[in-house]
């Protein structure tokens, strides 16, 4: 593509297909733009560079730099202590569990409200509530669950009334299950918000067509519904995983530092950075970046594929 056709195309603005054309030079991307356009877009890109890309890249690089300033793998090797390995392991378990529960229950609730023939007013209530609850994370969420399932919490007290002490039975809010149940409070609503449009995309005609061909409800979901939703489910699973993996505030307020998930270990490391090994902090950060980036890339790849079906 020559730069002159590029100019002609970009005059047509919104209808131009982008991304498909191979770019000959790095500057071809900017051809057809006027001076004012460059000025308009530059602050945004500069900000992204200075406050998103470079700081992250800086950490990635410093993970490979030793005390003496030379290249080393020592920081990565230092991650191999039992504390750090177990912190990654518990983080991954909590993130997988809360993401899986979020996907399953979010899907069920969304299906119930959208396709279960419930009063339509419930749907808008649910969507509004999901918008609120998916943003109700962090410190206050921890407080809410302490008041619910903590040692003096309402549910704990209710169970005690019936003679069942959940704490004596092994439950603890400051544990794997405690944190997982708490995380579901923002994971499920996020799932509902993401999956609702996809469920709307399942057309009535498909249900009718399947029924006409003699399919049972089970067969419809087994052979039509779920295969169509499948990419969305997988994609959202990885998104929720990343969401839980990077979260710290709720866990910190809930457990202090008694449950060593990765972000809390990193938090402690940053706090005491002067005393400890700065390279180790960067290596921890690198570990987190790799895991969340991996999960998010899965999400993005799957989402682009899923969108084809739901036009």
């Amino acid at each position: 593509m020559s730069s002159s056709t590029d100019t002609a195309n970009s005059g047509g603005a919104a209808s131009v297909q982008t991304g498909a054309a191979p770019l000959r030079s790095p500057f071809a991307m900017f051809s057809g733009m006027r001076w004012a356009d460059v000025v308009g877009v530059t602050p945004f890109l500069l900000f992204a560079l200075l406050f998103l890309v470079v700081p992250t890249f800086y950490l990635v690089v410093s993970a490979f730099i030793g005390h003496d300033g030379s290249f080393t793998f020592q920081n990565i090797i230092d991650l191999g202590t039992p504390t750090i390995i177990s912190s990654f392991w518990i983080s991954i378990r909590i993130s997988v569990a809360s993401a899986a529960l979020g996907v399953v229950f979010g899907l069920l609730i969304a299906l119930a409200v959208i396709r279960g023939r419930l009063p339509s007013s419930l749907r808008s209530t649910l969507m509004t509530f999901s918008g609120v609850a998916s943003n109700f994370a962090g410190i206050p969420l921890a407080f809410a669950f302490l008041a619910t399932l903590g040692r003096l919490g309402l549910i704990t007290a209710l169970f005690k009334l019936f003679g069942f002490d959940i704490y004596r039975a092994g439950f603890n809010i400051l544990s794997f299950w405690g944190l997982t149940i708490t995380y579901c409070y923002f994971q499920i609503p996020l799932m509902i918000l993401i999956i609702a449009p996809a469920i709307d995309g399942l057309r009535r005609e498909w249900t009718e067509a399947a029924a006409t061909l003699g399919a049972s409800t089970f067969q419809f979901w087994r052979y039509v519904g779920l295969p169509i939703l499948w990419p969305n489910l997988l994609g959202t699973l990885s998104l929720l995983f990343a969401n839980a993996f990077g979260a710290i505030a709720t866990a910190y307020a809930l457990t202090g530092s008694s449950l060593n998930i990765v972000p809390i270990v990193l938090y402690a490391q940053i706090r005491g950075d002067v005393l400890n090994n700065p390279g180790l902090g960067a290596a921890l950060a690198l570990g987190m970046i790799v895991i969340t980036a991996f999960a998010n890339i899965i999400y993005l790849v799957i989402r682009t594929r899923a969108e084809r079906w739901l036009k």
Partner: protein
Amino acid sequence: MRRGRLWAWIVFILGAAYFLLPLIATIQFSLSIRRGTLSLDAYTNVLQSPDFQQTLVYSFLVGIGAIVVGLLLVVPAAYFVRLRAPQLRPIIEFVTLLPLIIPPIILVFGYIRMYSSSSILPLTNSNIGTNILLTLAYVALALPYMYRAVDTGLRTIDVQTLTEAANILGANTITIMARVIFPNIIVAVLSGAFLTLAIVIGEFTIASLLNRPAFGVYMQNVGANRAFEPAALAVISFVITWAAMGMIQLLARFAPRTAALTD
């Protein structure tokens, strides 16, 4: 379909129980600071505390700052991408996804390393510098929501025609953006702004690691030292979140319904 409705009701009621019980428990807990009787003392303790007022005002101001800076960055970028530079769209959209991919704790760790006293741009050296850094961090957090809101707003108006019309009337680019485009997308902009506020107001990780007197840090402190006040704080911040989201719902009713461009 009667059976179908039954399972739907069961799922819905179980879900509602999971989401409402913690709220009820929190409200009940926040009211039981005095043994044997319900009282609002936990709320008065919280609301009268100078720390509460100061940190809430501080977080609110940082949030407003982040919204203003965010708009100054996002509106021109989204406008020009839509008007004349659609080939930049993939880059811009990728950038707006970055804050969702990079966890806040990583972001702030990078800032601390990059903008510390020994760097080229030592923002963490002074109070003002650190406040600016916190504001910019919140701009970064809000970028995906802000960009999406503005871009959705731009989609509902005919950017091309409005720009050409204003051009013919002799307006320059800044005038066009400030007096033609911006007023037309104000509803979308405001909903992005309220979402930003909801996210930023109780933020803990970044504010805490930058040692800022923010609302989230204050809440964490109260949680570590008090029993009933945290529950009251949780109720208050739930109300704040609900208010911000409610504003978005309300604004959606005023959104222009004349879709000029569809793509």
